[in-house]
């Protein structure tokens, strides 16, 4: 006969106002197997827990039920207390009589709540009687991390993990780390130069012994689970031997072919063998194979002749490297929505309509104009510039529903940069609302308006067209209720931030969730902001949604601290609430395998003595299983059960109702 104790919590008046806890306890004491009952004001308090421990010891209880709040609140608390009293922690079960009972019933006579609490507790008793003591699952942890994406968030995460004494692999798709931040001129609200604060971090990442840099590389395949991931990385051929290259730049000098520079957003050209920008890390050029006549048609080869250490190899192939890691930080960043989508603004048709990112390059001292604001069509210094905000943002019809968050700030910054560089130039800004939430952000925008005389017009632009070498902007000024027409020399569009192309493919490869805009989902938007539903995979930066540099850096550090916490022990303990396959009855139909949202089901072969496969079985990877129970429902032969919630237990609970 089991020896069960039932503890009914009053939760101050939270439960007691609609549930007669004394009566619940009394009713429970009549049930077979229940040897101890009581009710108390606050079970979770220190005296409450002491009472629980003492009762377990004194009455030699082998199972405990606390009828109180949701198990989300205090299951851990009571299981810990039970364990301290010598009970297997999984022999402690919670009945939710607060959120699902007392809070939703308003019967002041307490009849409804009391009856329901009695029913719920009785059900739990029947379930508990069929519990088996469980043990936490121990998983070994490989103490090496992978960071995908070498922008500021990824660099920060890699540096912090390395500083915590763990090895990191930093994978970057482009030939250099740095990401979008490397393109920016100055940063709001302090106006420090982006390159000046970023490049030291890039160099630090390159020189840190614990960080292995894989640039021009992409993650191809991810297998395994928390603590034990196996990752395949494609290292695209650079056609330059990284180890021997001295970064002298002779090859770039001698290359006779030029193509549009993606880093400079087509504002200027670069050579076919190139580094994206002068401060690239690593400072190793790559050959743009589709545009290289040597690789395509075996003509030229000037770079190889110029190369002193002879490190150019036109026959170099892509390499696949396999790495074993314990945790993954995804920091793949963002891209900008194509402006061509908005025909009314004339981008792509009118040369002097540029994007905000292109303006960053014009304002950057390492940019195509050396930091002078000159318009693309004829190189003249524009005497007036119109900035259009919310190009695609907050526009469900033609763009995206969300606010891109940083545009109000960088547009204010652009007007300042413009007025500092072109004295007497007039900046106009068309805006919907000015969203400047952040430390010193509002003051920054006020400064642009009051000190640098940017003319802010609240309204949308309907049309942009060329006239006599100028760009005419027609729009509405909703504050004065009039239509305005501005003849400007240049127009700058604050384009919406969108998720990276291929973000969904990578998410599927990693088994993490994403939203309708293909931004990655955090586990909990408030309380677990850098974790994903897949244990061991963390997020940082704009792959989750628009954010600015300080936020991205904070998230990089947050993800790193999560990784370091995971790496702090040799083994990781996991909750044993996982599914288990009945090997005798499983007929390998694989319905569970397709149903499992976490890819926790594997195919296991059964071999005879000669090594021939005689049978297949489904096998649950306990390191990955989240105990959701989907496979249990999917299994047609009822061969899967969920520990702690077996069919037997659930049916017993229902029968007790």
């Amino acid at each position, binding site marked *: 006969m089991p020896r069960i104790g039932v503890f009914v919590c009053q939760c101050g008046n939270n439960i007691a106002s609609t549930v007669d806890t004394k009566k619940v306890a009394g009713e429970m004491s009549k049930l077979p197997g229940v040897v101890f009952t009581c009710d108390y004001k606050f079970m979770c308090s220190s005296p409450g827990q002491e009472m629980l421990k003492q009762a377990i010891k004194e009455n030699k209880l082998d199972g405990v039920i606390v009828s109180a709040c949701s198990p989300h609140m205090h299951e851990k608390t009571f299981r810990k207390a039970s364990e301290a009293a010598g009970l297997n922690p999984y022999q402690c079960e919670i009945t939710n009589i607060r959120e699902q009972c007392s809070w939703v019933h308003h019967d002041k006579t307490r009849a409804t709540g009391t009856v329901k609490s009695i029913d719920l507790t009785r059900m739990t008793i029947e379930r508990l009687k069929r519990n088996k003591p469980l043990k936490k699952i121990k998983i070994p942890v490989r103490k090496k991390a992978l960071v995908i994406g070498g922008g500021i968030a990824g660099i920060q995460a890699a540096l912090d993990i390395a500083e915590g004494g763990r090895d990191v692999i930093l994978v970057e798709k482009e030939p250099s780390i740095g990401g979008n931040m490397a393109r920016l001129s100055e940063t709001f609200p302090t106006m420090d130069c982006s390159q000046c604060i970023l490049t030291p971090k890039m160099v630090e990442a390159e020189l840190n012994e614990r960080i292995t840099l894989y640039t021009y590389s992409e993650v191809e395949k991810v297998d395994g689970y928390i603590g034990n991931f196996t990752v395949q990385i494609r290292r695209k051929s650079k056609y330059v031997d990284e180890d021997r290259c001295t970064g002298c730049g002779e090859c770039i000098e001698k290359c006779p072919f030029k193509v549009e520079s993606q880093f400079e957003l087509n504002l200027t050209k670069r050579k076919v063998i190139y580094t994206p920008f002068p401060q690239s890390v690593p400072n190793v050029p790559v050959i743009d194979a589709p545009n290289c006549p040597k690789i395509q048609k075996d003509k030229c080869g000037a770079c190889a002749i110029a190369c002193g250490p002879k490190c150019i190899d036109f026959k170099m192939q892509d390499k696949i490297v396999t790495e074993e890691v314990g945790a993954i930080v995804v920091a793949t960043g963002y891209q900008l929505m194509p402006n061509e989508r*908005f025909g*009314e603004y004339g981008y792509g*048709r009118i040369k002097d309509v540029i994007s905000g990112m292109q303006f960053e390059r014009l304002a950057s001292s390492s940019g195509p104009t050396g930091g002078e604001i000159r318009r693309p069509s004829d190189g003249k210094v524009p005497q007036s510039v119109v900035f259009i905000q919310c190009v695609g943002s907050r526009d469900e019809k033609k763009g995206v529903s969300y606010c891109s968050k940083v545009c109000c700030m960088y547009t204010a910054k652009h007007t300042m940069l413009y007025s500092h560089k072109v004295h007497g130039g007039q900046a106009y800004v068309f805006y919907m609302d000015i969203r400047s939430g952040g430390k010193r952000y509002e003051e920054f925008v006020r400064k642009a308006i009051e000190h640098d005389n940017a003319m802010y017009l609240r309204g949308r632009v309907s049309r942009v*067209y060329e*006239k006599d070498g100028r760009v005419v902007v027609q729009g509405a000024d909703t504050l004065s209720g009039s239509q305005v027409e501005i003849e400007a020399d240049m127009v700058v569009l604050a384009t919406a931030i969108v998720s990276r192309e291929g973000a969904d493919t990578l998410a599927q490869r990693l088994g993490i969730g994403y939203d309708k805009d293909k931004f990655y989902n955090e586990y909990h938007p408030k309380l677990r902001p850098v974790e994903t539903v897949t244990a061991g995979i963390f997020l940082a930066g704009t792959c989750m949604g628009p954010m600015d540099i300080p936020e991205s850096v904070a998230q990089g550090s947050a993800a790193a601290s999560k990784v370091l916490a995971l790496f702090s022990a040799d083994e990781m303990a996991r909750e044993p609430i996982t599914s288990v396959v009945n090997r005798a009855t499983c007929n390998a139909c694989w319905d569970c395998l397709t149903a499992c949202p976490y890819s926790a089901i594997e195919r296991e072969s059964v071999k005879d003595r000669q090594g021939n496969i005689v049978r297949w079985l489904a096998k649950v990877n306990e390191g990955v299983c989240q105990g959701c129970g989907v496979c249990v429902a999917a299994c047609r032969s009822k061969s899967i059960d969920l520990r702690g919630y077996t069919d037997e237990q659930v049916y017993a609970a229902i029968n007790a109702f």
Partner: protein
Amino acid sequence: MKIPYYPGCTLNTVAKHFDASARDAAVSMGFEMEELAQWNCCGATFPLTPDNLIGLTAPAKVLSNARKAGDTLTTLCSVCYNVLKRTNKVMKDSKEKRAVVNGFIEEEYDGSLNIIHYLEVLRDRVGFVKVKEAVKRPLKGVKAGCYYGCMLLRPFEDIGIDNAERPTVFEDLLRALGAEVVDFPNKIECCGAHLAMNNEDVVVRLSGNVMTSAVGMGAELIVTSCPLCQYNLEKSQPKVSERTAGYAGVPIAYFTQILGLALGQPVEGLGFEKNATDIMPLLQKKGIV
């Protein structure tokens, strides 16, 4: 190829030359515009209040009749096109509204008609490449401004003939006819539309902006696709010339007239004399006639 055709009231009265030139051009392009046996006015305005269903009954009746003639319906007038296409969408998408309207007109129309503009027939069924091959009198040296107006393009989700902010279908046609196309900022702005009835000043201002902006960009000819645009532009022209220094007017013609001209049809049959502006000096200057 025979395509069921809805001319609409205007093309049956004041814009007969728009209708005739389109039918003739169709024949030279190898298809026939087969007028519906029975049709009524489209209502000329799409009701903008969602519960004003009575405004949908006239166009729904047209659609219901047309469905009996085939699965496609073509039309020329921008207003008819707009009203019919939007009504069709309501009949297709809204079960409740469809039931009410069908009950009223005593029909069982389900919104399954495919409504295409004459320009779409040329672009998607004939193809501009074929149009180009059929040109016998290329409009060499004619700088044409293509005036879309609003009804042909918007609202984009309901109409979708082309990119509503940066359309090219009209220009592509004119280029196929050998003309030089002039891009001008007001090509998709409103002409003033029905305000012609009660507020002429607004019409003169808006139509004036269209014409002066086209001429400012170098247009020698404005091509239209809508009888109301054509009317407003023609009607405003004298006042605009009066009010705008240095503006001497510009010929305005339906695109089907220009199409017929390029396809080599007799100039006399194109109805240019019915336009308020005289295109002949321009055509003579360019050596086309």
